[in-house]
């Protein structure tokens, strides 16, 4: 989230799309309700189903799964046409005024793709996705991890051409206006199935906060995995971010783009490099093309690109400081300036190691074994059958869990005969792990707040803490490497200075992430001093000369000399704006709302005097406020430094240049990979042009001819993932799986609630009882009546009901396709095609 849970109470308007927080985040949802109760805030729910969130919303639109870009693009068009935009904000805080290269072309002019499309390689040469401008800077800011790289991209220009009147036909604003002019209410209706009157009501309501350009009110956009799980998920979120920039909602209390994370610590997992293409703190992984530490830094450290009279802090210019400190944490004294800070020890990512590719590689015999901790890979899918088939070919599988799960019992999943079972040679090690209440450590919530928890109970029986298991495996591997090993240095020289090496304390790990001084340090400006060995107060102290160590720069400040900041529990909130500065600790620098400089006008005065976050203090010539300023504290407003300090431009990106995204600098609407219609915008280019399917025998994709129904998967409040089917309390609340279908569809098929139905996709089938409801209606999609169904995903072949034979032993993800988003690699769990029959 750019903002946070508690901050939702400050909002005037909520657009909840791609998420169902009342269902999946009921505790955090209290703040959305608080805004309704205390500010009479309005809530719009846009979802394929009328959900628990819709039940308390003020307006509901039923959308076809996966068509969110069409909806949001339509809202952008509405806002521009009706002067519901934040003009000053747009000109000064975004790249709306930047002029784009002349040879850049929009999909409307290039057969449904942006300029530079390479049809054979299903990828773009993104050179034309650039600003027009003067002398080029030294390097480009490109996304890492793009393997099989096309020719290196040109750099961003150091001095960008711009037009503050926003009238230049090639300025970002005019291109935006042109691009979304095609997203008419009629087009939105054809694609999304939302009647145009309903859509216009929603667009009118959401943009009403910026009526006549008045800046006082703020609107928030709230989403979750309903946006990420598409073959264009990143671009949906981009569209939301652009809309929020257009309306001047980013950086504002009660505004922002707010991702609700799918589990209690998913934010922590991604912060700590849960994705293959990042290192802790979202540093970009090195690739084989980075021949040295310096080459890696040159590629991943952006240089400033802006209109000449403006300023840009370009905070990522500090990338070498973050990186050297990270390598010092990893390898200690073995990381020296001479050996490029032990750069050679780091693995170089040579290909796509994302989720579906891991399984594909195992399926193809390239991956021999798997450690599965804290996740149930078979049930998670997509295409569970493929994952089961892949595990059959593995040599070993280690599962750390608190229940016997589908993954550890893949070898006896339904459909495997006794004979076949005997043929499966995979060795499965099932390690009893600790449950969440048996571990201490910090959770990082969706709001980026780190909150320390203590273990409530000891681990039962022979269960072990995860870190104890991992540590002992590591120590054993290290022993083996001492005897023998191709390249032992990265293993032998890894720092492991924990008090109990066999079970590192998580508090010690957090201290390591926070970082410490390796030599006596002094801040030249304030003369503040830190002695060697002391914990660092924050990432501003990090150095690229090897005198600091820090495991994750964004967590620097979480465990200082003052102790574990994440364990703080001071509920006070002096500003009454939900800041609670003494409650836990949030990255970065305990700042609650990111980009909060944008909460003020160009002169440094809050847009809304009743919601003062930070402001420019003329007396002290400093930025001060109720929150920690996300800005250079002494940058005078007249210097015109951009509030979006993490971008090389210093401003918010309505146009995302060069390598930022694989599939376009503006989001364009493409159909889900399996879709019921051709794309009405450009029938010859229906799907995301850079998305292709995998090629194994298990990777099958269906068409509307065989599979006419749109299907989406979802979760229930009463259950937690694939866990609580083992808990009698949850089983009592919702005893068995079901399939949600509309009354009209059910009537047509002669199905009554409680009768069993069979749902099939090109990959598999799923049988459960029908929940016939008024909450899903038939939709007219491009003139064609289309049905949509939804299936909650909490069941499998191991659980109380499953073991007692009360349900079919099946997983929803037997249905889902192995298609992923090209930027984030998230599978398309929502909006695939199925057929529905009586079972």
């Amino acid at each position, binding site marked *: 989230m750019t903002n946070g849970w508690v901050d939702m109470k400050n909002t005037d308007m909520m657009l909840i799309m791609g998420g169902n927080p009342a269902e999946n985040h009921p505790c955090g*949802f209290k703040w959305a309700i608080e805004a*309704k109760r205390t500010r009479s805030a309005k809530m719009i729910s846009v979802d394929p189903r*009328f959900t628990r*969130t819709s*039940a308390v919303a003020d307006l509901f639109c039923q959308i076809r799964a996966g068509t969110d870009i069409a909806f949001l693009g339509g809202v952008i068009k509405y806002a521009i046409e009706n002067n519901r935009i934040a003009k000053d904000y747009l000109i000064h805080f975004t790249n709306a005024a930047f002029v784009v290269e002349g040879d850049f072309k929009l999909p409307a002019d290039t057969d449904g793709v942006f300029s530079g499309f390479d049809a054979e390689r299903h990828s773009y040469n993104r050179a034309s996705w650039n600003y027009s401008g003067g002398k080029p800077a030294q390097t480009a800011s490109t996304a890492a991890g793009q393997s099989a790289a096309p020719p290196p991209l040109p750099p961003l220009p150091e001095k960008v051409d711009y037009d503050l009147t926003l009238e230049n036909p090639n300025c970002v604003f005019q291109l935006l206006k042109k691009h979304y002019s095609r997203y008419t209410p009629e087009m939105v209706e054809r694609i999304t199935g939302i009647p145009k009157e309903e859509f216009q009501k929603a667009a009118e309501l959401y943009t009403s906060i910026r009526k006549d350009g008045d800046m006082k009110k703020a609107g928030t956009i709230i989403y979750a995995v309903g946006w990420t799980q598409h073959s264009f998920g990143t671009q949906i979120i981009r569209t939301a971010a652009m809309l929020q920039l257009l309306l001047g909602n980013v950086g504002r209390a009660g505004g922002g783009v707010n991702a609700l994370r799918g589990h209690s610590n998913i934010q922590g997992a991604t912060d700590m490099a849960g994705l293959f293409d990042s290192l802790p703190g979202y540093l970009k992984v090195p690739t084989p093309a980075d021949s040295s530490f310096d080459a890696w830094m040159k590629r991943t450290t952006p240089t400033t690109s802006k209109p000449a009279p403006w300023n840009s802090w370009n905070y990522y210019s500090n990338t070498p400081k973050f990186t050297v400190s990270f390598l010092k944490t990893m390898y200690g004294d073995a990381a020296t300036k001479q050996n490029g800070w032990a750069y050679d020890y780091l693995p170089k990512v040579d290909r796509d190691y994302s989720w579906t590719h891991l399984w594909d590689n195992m399926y193809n015999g390239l991956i021999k074994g798997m450690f599965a901790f804290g996740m149930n890979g078979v049930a998670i899918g997509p295409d569970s059958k493929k994952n089961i088939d892949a595990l059959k070919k593995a040599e070993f599988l280690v599962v750390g869990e608190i229940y016997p799960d589908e993954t550890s019992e893949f070898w006896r999943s339904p459909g495997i005969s006794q004979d076949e079972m005997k043929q499966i040679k995979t060795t499965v090690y099932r390690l009893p792990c600790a449950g969440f209440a048996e571990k201490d450590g910090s959770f990082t919530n969706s709001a980026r707040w780190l909150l320390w928890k203590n273990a409530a109970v000891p681990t039962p029986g022979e269960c072990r803490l995860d870190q104890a298991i991992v540590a002992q495996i590591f120590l054993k591997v290290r022993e083996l490497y001492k005897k023998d090993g191709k390249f032992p240095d990265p293993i032998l020289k890894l720092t492991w200075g924990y008090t109990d090496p066999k079970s590192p304390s998580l508090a010690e790990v957090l201290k390591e992430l926070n970082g410490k001084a390796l030599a006596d340090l002094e801040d030249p400006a304030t003369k503040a001093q830190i002695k060697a060995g002391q914990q660092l107060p924050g990432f501003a102290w990090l150095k690229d000369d090897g005198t600091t160590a820090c495991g994750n720069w964004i967590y620097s400040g979480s465990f200082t000399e003052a102790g574990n900041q994440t364990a703080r529990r001071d509920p006070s909130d002096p500003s009454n704006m939900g800041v609670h500065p003494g409650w836990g600790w949030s990255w970065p620098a305990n700042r609650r709302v990111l980009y909060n400089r944008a909460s003020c006008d160009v002169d440094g005065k809050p847009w809304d005097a009743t919601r003062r976050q930070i402001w420019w203090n003329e007396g002290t010539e400093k930025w001060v406020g109720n929150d920690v300023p996300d800005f250079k504290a002494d940058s005078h407003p007249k210097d015109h430094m951009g509030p979006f300090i993490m971008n090389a431009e210093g401003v918010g990106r309505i146009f995302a240049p060069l390598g930022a995204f694989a599939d376009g600098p503006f989001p364009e609407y493409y159909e889900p990979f399996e879709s019921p219609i051709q794309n009405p915008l450009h029938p010859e280019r229906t799907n995301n042009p850079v998305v292709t399917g995998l090629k194994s025998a298990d990777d099958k994709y269906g068409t509307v001819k065989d599979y006419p129904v749109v299907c989406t998967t979802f979760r229930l*409040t009463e259950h937690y993932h694939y866990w609580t089917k083992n808990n009698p*309390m949850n089983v009592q609340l919702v005893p068995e799986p079901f399939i949600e279908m509309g009354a009209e569809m059910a009537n047509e098929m002669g199905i009554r609630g409680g009768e069993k139905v069979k749902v099939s996709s090109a990959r598999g089938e799923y049988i459960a009882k029908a*929940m016939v409801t008024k*909450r899903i209606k038939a939709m007219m999609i491009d003139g064609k009546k289309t049905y949509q169904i939804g299936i909650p995903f909490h069941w499998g072949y191991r659980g109380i009901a499953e073991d007692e034979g009360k349900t079919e032993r099946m997983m929803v993800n037997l249905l889902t396709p192995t298609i992923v988003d090209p930027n984030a690699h998230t599978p398309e769990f929502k909006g695939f095609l199925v057929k529905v029959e009586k079972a």
Partner: protein
Amino acid sequence: MSQATLRVQKMSGHAGSVPGDDAQREFTVCKLIDTTTCIGCKACEVACMEWNDLPFGETVFDNTYQTMPETRWNYWNLILFNEHEKEDGSLMWLMRKNQCMHCAEPGCLAACPADGAIVQYTNGIVDFQQANCIGCGYCITGCPFDIPKMNPKTNRVFKCTLCADRVSEGLEPACIKSCPTGCLHFGSKEDMKDLAEKRAKQLRDDYNFPQAGVYDPAGVGGTGVVYVLHDATRPELYGGLPSNPSIPWSVKLWKGPLKWLGNVAMVGGLIGLFVHYLRFGPKSREDEDIHPRGENP
């Protein structure tokens, strides 16, 4: 609040004065349930089971998100889910937490013939004393909200206690404590009514609910549980919440003008009982456990 709040002000089937009748009254307690901010998460259902040590029971899929069709003797707090299509075609998914309403004039208490089996404390909580219950089931007939349920095995009737044990110690009921959205409130009747009316006004003024209002039906003397409804003119949409609940006429007659008939019947019954005793001997009580934890339904 102190133990004094658990003084009894009304008592079922009791001749003569009620102990505590003249006790100094503290305020009447009340739950406020704002159905317009309820998300049906069932935290209150779970909290109720956990606090009251209620056993797990079997449920079956019934084409709804609702946990079971109605409250059970060992499931006292149930959110009712109802899909309602408005005249303009838009949908409402109404969720109402259902439990004992703790009526000021409780039909169950009026109907109950057993001395002290149902009491009303001075703070307004209506509580069943299973030790005094004779299992006749008249309370079930007497309740206009269909709340009390009998454990068929022990012939004892159970329902929500408004967490009298917690309230007497100054705590809020378990359901209130667990509610994540704050759609549940607890306090004095006066304060809750005030809060409810303000919320209803907000719904009328700022949201599109011109009929929003507060449910506190006069037919039972008002209730210790009040609802904010989007449409107070049609409470029956919310899982059959009665518009004008009252104590059934049969109970009124029975406990009023026809009481003499009962006395005659009772004498007859006693004679019958005596004959029965002579014939079959005393009843064994060894398998009886009146605590709900004792068994599954």
